[in-house]
């Protein structure tokens, strides 16, 4: 619901519906106008009911009534709609209470269908629809610096090798040159250590310029945020705390502003505390600081590390800002070699947040929608059967003067009452299911914490319930309206079964078809999940423990000290009798991010500029991680700081740059300030995958001695108890330096917690639950139709038995019927899957959507369940007693 220039704008669909239901002409327009006027009064009243929901609640009764009675009833029947609905509804409740079993079956089925959709919608609502927790979130954009030849779309990890994070010099040019932005800021993630009585703990930090805080526009809960004067070099070190950290580490001390906290052993003055729920740039940041002097003073334009966020100035469109930034970057390219062939590209902040998750979430919503469709088909069948059984009653009512429209309206009202009851139960189910679901939800899902039953979700459930009621009630109602060929009270239902069976069968077939689609989807995503999980990652995860270690500032300038520290630490660890091997790597799969600094490679055509992932590793790393050396030799002690610079490359790098030749003896280098020596390749190792479902990318390894990076992940291989080894790792670390924070995780845990893994597992599980539900509903549907056929053919079956028909013959006849329904559904379903598969996001189903073994297995299992569903009615058919059936005649 938006307010435009102060006037309320009702939900567009609701107003359209009201226009349609109101009398035509100016009088009807005045009814729509009255609704608007009341809506503004409602807004002024500051009621708790959200205006959108309020409007729907006022419009729906009128629309539903128009649908119910307007089918041929007097036009302009809108007035009195509510009363008539209540009357029909009361009658419906009375009628239904006479058949509580049927009513309960319908309500339960609908509750499952609507409940599933409601839960799925609440996830969609939180992740894709709910406004981000910032002021005017649509004005927020992320600005990327990308190669010009990179196609559109938000760069994911695979495309990251093509994208360049922004160097401070470039950022400053952007900030000074751009006019389309109210504020622009840059930030990077940093790891801090915070000293506690139990030893130092790691703290998630973000270094940001003041512009980033201006762009997000969230006021602090206490004190202030980072201001322009903090951006200046050499100022006092200041810190803004996250609400979670403030509560956890400082007991939510209200007088914390002005106090000093020690981060990485350096005192920082706390200047402010952000409110809970402030997410910048992602959930769970504990501390924000200004950029460090070293980062701010970064001397070159190659090797960026900043991300940039901007808030558009009033009246500026993303498009205009995009044009400006692109031409700004073009001008930089004319002046600086390093800025050439790069462009600046804007993406809405929300898009950046949800980029990877959108296809999966929408798939989930569609799956839930299919389950609801199946549930509706089931209920339509039930209600049709019931309407047939009531033919006699309805005929009497017509004989007594009830109009056809009226009876149709009543059937529709019954369906609506059932659907609303189902919707109510569905909401209870959804509310109950959300808590356990939330704990299973990957927290990397955008706004996972915001998944709840809010007014939007309530309105969704209401609309879906009404739609389900209309959908299920329309067929029986339509049948009453158009079934004019038979006079009241004449003939039993028996004469017309041929035509009716076709309607029932069509519904059952569509249920099986829908169930087939869902089951295939679930089976394909499960298979894709299993496939990716069991992909050769290139390293061993069993009995491996990882510990991230960032050395404090006093070590960082001294390469020899860094090397000594890490080789000493891994040496001490591997010397323990309970440890098989120990190593360290600056970039390790599933721990921390990946980065692709600019690099050059000597190839047959000369020197090629590129970006290469790389890792500085300790001598024991390959053995500890189980990465095999395929050619040449591993890194060794002789590859010291003063020796010939060497590198070990992975297979992908060797294949990419030297496809025809031997990689050994070739040279490559990084193009970073202070690190641009040529390194000679001495070995080739197998590929490793850095993230769940990622393909290997070209990378090379160096020794820590030849590339002394102060942040490393220490890896230990030991078959002994994880807790004992973890403690030993911490103690060994603290025996070298007691101020360094540490957190030990098993490698398997790191994988399980990774974004790709949690999301893929969640999708596979959710799809499996929904598909099981769909299959169950479809079985019930097939059973219902076959059972109904058997019941209405009792007479015929009795005659067959009397004329000598055998039991096996009848059994086969009924089973064939069930099987025919199932097979028709399977055929239609597989046609849909094969046709629609190509439009689905390929990342969802890595194995492809046309996997014959999966589709075949699903088809077979559905066919078997179709047979099983027909077995009971078939058995009953063989027990028909001709005497009992034929005697009344």
């Amino acid at each position, binding site marked *: 619901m938006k307010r435009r220039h102060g006037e309320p704008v009702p939900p567009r669909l609701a107003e359209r519906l009201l226009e349609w239901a109101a009398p035509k002409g100016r009088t009807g327009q005045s009814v729509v106008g009255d609704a608007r006027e009341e809506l503004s009064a409602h807004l002024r009243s500051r009621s708790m009911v959200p205006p959108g929901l309020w409007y729907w609640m006022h419009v729906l009764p009128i629309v539903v009534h128009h649908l119910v009675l307007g089918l041929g009833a007097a036009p302009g029947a809108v*007035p009195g709609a509510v009363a008539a609905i209540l009357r029909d509804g009361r009658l419906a409740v009375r009628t239904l209470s006479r058949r509580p079993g049927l009513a309960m079956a319908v309500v339960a089925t609908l509750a499952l269908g609507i409940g599933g959709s409601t839960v799925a919608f609440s996830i969609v609502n939180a992740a894709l629809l709910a406004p981000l927790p910032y002021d005017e979130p649509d004005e927020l954009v992320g600005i990327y610096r990308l190669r010009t030849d990179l196609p559109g779309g938000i760069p994911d990890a695979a495309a990251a090798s093509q994208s360049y994070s922004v160097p401070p010099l470039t950022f400053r040019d952007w900030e000074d040159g751009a006019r389309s932005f109210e504020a622009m800021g840059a930030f990077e993630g940093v790891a801090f250590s915070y000293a506690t009585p139990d030893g130092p703990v790691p703290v998630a930090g973000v270094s940001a310029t003041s512009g980033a805080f201006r762009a997000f526009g969230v006021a602090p809960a206490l004190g202030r945020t980072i201001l322009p004067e903090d951006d200046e070099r050499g100022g006092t070190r200041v810190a803004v705390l996250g609400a979670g950290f403030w509560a956890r580490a400082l007991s939510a001390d209200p007088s914390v502003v002005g106090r000093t906290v020690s981060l990485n052993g350096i005192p920082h003055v706390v200047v402010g505390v952000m409110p809970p729920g402030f997410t910048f740039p992602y959930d769970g940041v504990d501390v924000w600081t200004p950029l460090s002097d070293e980062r701010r003073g970064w001397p070159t334009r190659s090797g960026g590390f900043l991300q940039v966020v901007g808030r558009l100035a009033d009246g500026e469109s993303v498009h205009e800002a995009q044009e400006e930034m692109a031409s700004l970057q073009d001008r930089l390219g004319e002046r600086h070699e390093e800025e050439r062939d790069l462009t600046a590209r804007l993406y809405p902040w929300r898009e950046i947040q949800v980029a990877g998750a959108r296809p999966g979430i929408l798939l989930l919503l569609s799956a839930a929608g299919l389950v609801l469709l199946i549930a509706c088909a089931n209920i339509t069948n039930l209600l049709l059967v019931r309407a047939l059984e009531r033919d006699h009653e309805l005929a009497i009512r017509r004989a007594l003067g009830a109009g056809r429209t009226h009876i149709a309206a009543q059937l529709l009202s019954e369906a609506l009452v059932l659907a609303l009851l189902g919707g109510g139960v569905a909401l209870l189910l959804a509310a109950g299911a959300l808590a356990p679901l939330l704990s299973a939800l990957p927290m990397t899902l955008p706004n996972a914490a915001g998944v709840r039953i809010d007014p939007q979700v309530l309105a969704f459930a209401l609309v879906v319930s009404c739609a389900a009621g209309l959908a299920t009630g329309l067929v029986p109602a339509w049948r009453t309206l158009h079934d004019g060929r038979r006079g009241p009270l004449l003939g039993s239902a028996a004469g017309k079964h041929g035509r009716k069976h076709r309607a029932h069968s069509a519904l059952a077939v569509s249920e099986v078809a829908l169930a087939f689609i869902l089951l295939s989807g679930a089976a394909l995503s499960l298979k894709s999940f299993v496939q990716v999980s069991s992909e050769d990652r290139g390293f061993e995860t069993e009995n491996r423990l990882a510990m991230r270690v960032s050395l404090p500032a006093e070590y960082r300038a001294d390469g020899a000290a860094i090397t000594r520290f890490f080789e000493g630490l891994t040496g001490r660890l591997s010397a323990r009798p309970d440890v098989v091997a120990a190593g360290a790597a600056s970039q390790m799969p599933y721990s921390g991010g990946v980065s692709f600094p600019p690099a050059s490679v000597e190839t047959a055509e000369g020197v090629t500029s590129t970006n290469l992932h790389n890792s500085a590793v300790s001598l024991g790393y390959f053995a500890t991680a189980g990465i095999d050396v395929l050619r040449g030799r591993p890194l060794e002690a002789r590859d010291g700081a003063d020796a010939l610079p060497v590198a070990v490359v992975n297979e992908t790098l060797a294949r990419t740059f030297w496809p025809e030749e031997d990689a050994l003896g070739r040279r490559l280098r990084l193009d970073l300030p202070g690190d641009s020596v040529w390194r000679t390749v001495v070995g080739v190792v197998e590929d490793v995958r850095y993230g769940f479902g990622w393909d290997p990318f070209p990378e090379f390894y160096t020794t820590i001695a030849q590339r002394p990076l102060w942040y490393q992940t220490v890896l230990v291989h030991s078959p002994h108890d994880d807790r004992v080894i973890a403690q030993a790792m911490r103690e060994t670390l603290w025996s070298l330096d007691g101020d360094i924070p540490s957190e030990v995780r098993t490698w398997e845990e790191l994988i399980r917690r990774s974004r790709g893994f949690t999301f893929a597992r969640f999708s596979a599980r959710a799809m499996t639950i929904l598909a099981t539900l769909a299959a169950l509903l479809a079985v019930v549907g097939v059973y219902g139709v076959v059972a109904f056929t058997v019941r209405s053919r009792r007479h015929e079956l009795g005659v067959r038995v009397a004329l000598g028909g055998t039991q096996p013959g009848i059994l086969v006849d009924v089973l064939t019927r069930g099987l025919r329904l199932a097979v028709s559904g399977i055929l239609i379903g597989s046609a849909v899957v094969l046709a629609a598969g190509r439009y689905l996001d390929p990342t969802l189903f890595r194995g492809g959507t046309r996997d014959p073994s999966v589709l075949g297995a699903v088809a077979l299992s559905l066919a078997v369940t179709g047979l099983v569903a027909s077995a009971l009615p078939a058995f009953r058919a063989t027990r028909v007693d001709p005497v009992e059936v034929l005697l009344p005649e």
Partner: protein
Amino acid sequence: MAKKYLGELEQMILLAVLRLGEEAFAVGIMGELDREVGRKVSRGSLYKTLDRLRQKGLVRWRIEDGTPERGGKPRRLFTVTPAGVAALEDSREALLNLWDGVLGTLGGEEG
């Protein structure tokens, strides 16, 4: 011909229209009834009653251009016809006649 008397809601709505004068629009009538007698009338009942009163010739309406608040949609201004005023007077008279002397028997004060 026997006189036909107004229903309770009809009387209330006619009186509200009279009280509102040049401001007798649908939403205003509902507000007036809510404010003065605490009666919440649904839009459905209000439209239905107004339709009935017009069919009886007791009210008429003219359509005016809408305000921005109404998204520019037109609105109906209702007025009570002389017949409507007469019907109200008949109803009031009938009720007063019937009330006459009743308060005494109820134990209330005689007005």
